[in-house]
């Protein structure tokens, strides 16, 4: 019995050496929840984007770590007409798809048209480029009939043309209105170039007007491109499950075969498992949820924590004020009046908002949550985006100022009567929870009649509640779809942006500047207007922007060539790295 036990142990231990990832394999462990789809017109999540950006390519892509400089990818050159309405791209010659087909204009044309034909409501094609190329973005494939009434196939077809024929190397994209963000938007994975012959041969849309109606709003997760790919990227998909995605190098890649032969992206729920894998060398890079957990890997042999003060984030998280609270059946507003609750227009008073802004300890938050590694944000957009106004003050904890504003609010009634409401955050988001609790504690300290309860809701409930405009104050955020301030300024401050449905925000001074910035293309003029919006943010305090944590990456030391572009789903492309 003993000898069998020893033999067994020997066999078990003897094979453990296979565990570590080899020099030609890169293992990336990230959070659970794999890609939603590998079809570019359906994918709008990070996990899908991470695969797609390595398997497919766009005409131009981000240049290294830059978010406002673009490098040629499938196109080598482009020109813009004087009126900003026509973009002409010269395609790279002899670029092979994974199928062996060679890329030409017809593939670019097909890719863009397919995106607008399907108009997937859960994708990004119409959302991001509908205005520019179709003249609208309000209607999509969720209402196929309405979409076809609003958008004709002719409109779609005329938005992109092949002046030198389908097999030519010139692509012409015709905009209906100039858009300074066009190059940034086309770099998004939704505009990846698909192998049209491969797609058509496998039952996808045949590219003709006769069949386009069948594909409007179609659920493409039931179609071939959902889990089959033929891109021009440096990697091909070997296997995709909700546990892992396995990529292998495309030897005929136009930019030269990559150094890393195999990539395994594993979706691992348990953070402690991910950390152990990094320490053991079974993973080359892992995602760690927050700075507080970095202490578990600091000093681990073979592990590097990459940080750079120049690195910026592309997500912004504010605590929002609801300017017009829906009081109906709302347990978060108390009695719906000052004293025992809050009225619907509580946050419509600018003095209330300013007062609240002075209840939040910005630096204390950084010290407590980010271990001192963070940055104050002056306005609702990433620091690296055009028009970010770094010269604007940030309202922070100042109880004297807060008291002054609260005494002025509602003609003094707020200070006299006090208020009570519940602030909301989602699930187990400790960042948002802490921010709201800081505000709540300081409010109670300032005036015992200021009562703020802080409550969490599951994600689905949270979206529902904020969507119904019932949350008086809530913490949420936004991550960049493309590297242009419009993506944030409209979202946060516009009376028709994503958050206006949740906050009823309507500030004419800001709206005027937003509308003007959206109508011009000159970057200097736009920058001036956005900076003015930054000044107005300070003055009008429409929300409290939470500081951003200094970004970091946790990788094995053997990995070389890592850079960080926050606009990429994976922050870098696998083709650009190698291992010792």
């Amino acid at each position, binding site marked *: 019995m003993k000898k069998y036990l020893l033999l067994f142990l020997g066999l078990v231990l003897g094979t*453990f050496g296979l*565990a570590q990832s080899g020099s030609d394999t890169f293992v990336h462990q990230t959070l659970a929840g794999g890609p939603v789809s590998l079809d570019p017109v359906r994918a709008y999540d990070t996990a899908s984007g991470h695969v797609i950006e390595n398997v497919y390519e766009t005409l131009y892509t981000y240049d290294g770590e830059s978010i406002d400089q673009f490098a040629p990818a499938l196109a080598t050159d482009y020109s813009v007409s004087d009126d900003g309405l026509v973009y002409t791209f010269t395609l790279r010659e002899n670029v092979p798809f994974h199928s062996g087909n060679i890329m030409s204009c017809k593939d670019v044309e097909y890719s863009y048209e397919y995106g607008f034909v399907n108009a997937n409501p859960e994708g990004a094609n119409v959302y991001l480029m509908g205005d520019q190329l179709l003249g609208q973005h309000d209607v999509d494939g969720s209402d196929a009939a309405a979409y076809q009434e609003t958008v004709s196939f002719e409109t779609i077809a005329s938005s992109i043309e092949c002046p030198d024929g389908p097999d030519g190397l010139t692509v012409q994209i015709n905009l209906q209105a100039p858009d300074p963000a066009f190059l940034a938007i086309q770099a998004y994975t939704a505009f990846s170039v698909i192998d049209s012959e491969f797609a058509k041969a496998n039952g996808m849309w045949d590219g003709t007007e006769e069949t386009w109606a069948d594909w409007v709003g179609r659920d493409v997760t039931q179609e071939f491109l959902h889990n089959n790919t033929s891109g021009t990227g440096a990697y091909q998909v070997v296997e995709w499950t*909700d546990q892992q995605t396995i990529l292998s190098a495309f030897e005929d890649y136009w930019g030269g075969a990559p150094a890393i032969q195999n990539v395994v992206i594993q979706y691992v729920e*348990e953070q402690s498992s991910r950390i152990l894998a990094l320490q053991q060398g079974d993973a080359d890079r892992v995602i760690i949820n927050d700075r507080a957990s970095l202490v578990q890997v600091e000093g681990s042999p073979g592990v590097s924590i990459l940080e750079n003060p120049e690195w910026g984030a592309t997500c912004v998280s504010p605590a929002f004020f609801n300017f017009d609270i829906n009081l109906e059946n709302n347990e978060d507003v108390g009695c719906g009046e000052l004293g025992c609750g809050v009225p619907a227009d509580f946050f419509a008073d600018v003095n209330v908002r300013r007062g609240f802004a002075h209840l939040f300890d910005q630096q204390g938050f950084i010290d407590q949550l980010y271990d001192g590694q963070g940055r104050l944000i002056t306005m609702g957009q990433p620091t690296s985006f055009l028009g970010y106004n770094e010269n604007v003050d940030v309202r922070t904890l100042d109880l004297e100022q807060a008291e002054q504003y609260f005494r002025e609010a509602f003609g003094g009634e707020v200070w006299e009567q006090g208020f009570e409401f519940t602030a909301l955050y989602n699930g187990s988001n400790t960042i948002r929870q802490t921010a709201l609790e800081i505000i709540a504690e300081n409010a109670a300290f300032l005036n015992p009649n200021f009562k703020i309860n802080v409550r969490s809701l599951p994600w689905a409930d949270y*979206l529902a509640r904020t969507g119904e405009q019932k949350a008086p104050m809530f913490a949420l955020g936004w991550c960049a779809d493309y590297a242009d301030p419009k993506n944030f300024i409209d979202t946060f401050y516009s009376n028709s942006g994503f958050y206006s449905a949740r906050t009823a925000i309507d500030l004419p001074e800001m709206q005027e500047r937003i509308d003007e910035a959206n109508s011009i293309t000159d970057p200097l003029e736009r920058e001036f207007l956005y900076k003015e919006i930054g000044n107005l943010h300070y003055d009008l305090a429409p929300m409290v922007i939470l500081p951003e944590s200094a970004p970091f990456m946790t990788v094995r030391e053997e990995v070389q060539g890592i850079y960080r572009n926050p606009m990429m789903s994976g922050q870098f492309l696998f083709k650009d790295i190698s291992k010792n």
Partner: protein
Amino acid sequence: MFAFIVRRLFMLPLVFFGVTLFIVLLMQVLSPFQRAASYAQTENQARNLDAIIERYGLNDPWYMQYGRWLRQVSQGNLGYSRTSSEPVLTTLRKRFPPTAELAIFAFFPIIGVGIWLGTAAALNRDTLIDQATRVLAIVGWSLPTFVLGIWLLVIFYGGFGILEPGRVSTDFLIEIARGGFKNYTGLLTIDSLLNGRLDIFWDAFKHLILPVITLATVSSAQIMRVMRSSLLDALGQDYVRTARAKGLAERTVNRKHARRNGLIPVITLAGFTLIGLINGVIITETIFNFPGLGQWSAQAAVNLDYAAVLGFAVFTAVIVVIGNLIVDILYGVIDPRIRYD
């Protein structure tokens, strides 16, 4: 017996409708907006919830939604899982073999260790062996699975760099994905032997060790307690006294007479244990990143993945009904007093 089996199998459609209807009605407690919001994992994705409600018919009356699902099921389609981004049936087919493999490998130590310790405790009543075994059982039963699992991971994987989580090592994962490895059963250990790949067999086996130890520690404690008390009960019966009086060896008395009867309640528990294992062990699979049903079903529930939850409920109903039937049949085999008409 045949009539008994047929009667029990008739329960299957009843259970199917009962469970699935219950889930559908429970989901209606959530507003269409709440159910649509589960499709959006980020704020950016939440921009189009009205369209999602429209697209997936979340505003339709519950009976229409249920009817639509039943129609799909009648065509062999359990719907699409947003959690796994593929049809529910495909996910069940993919995730069942790993769960079954874990269940089979865990089941034998659970039963074996439980019966062995329970027997030892009963036969050495009130001795040190009995006390120690009972303490072991209490500790095992009280230990939360996630605590034990993480401890084992930290000690063996973190400390010694062996027995890593997952189902198989990265190199073999890539090799299997590339082809050249035939899947016969979906059970990696069996398939690797059938493919003549002892190296993959050992690798897959190693990956099972810690999850199996985690499961066995907790579940065998229960078996052990039940075995001990039922064997003590059997040892106190007249027929055991008679067997001893006839001069039979103590070993024969214990094994052939007492233990056989003592096993009856253990069989029930073993059946439920196996059913529970086959339905997936959420925490163990999550800690060890084992791609089984438990991990998927838990995520599906959190995601309000309607189709996945219903599909898993159907699967569970089938397993429970058939599992209970097998347990009842085994009763009849073990205890001749039990006969079914």
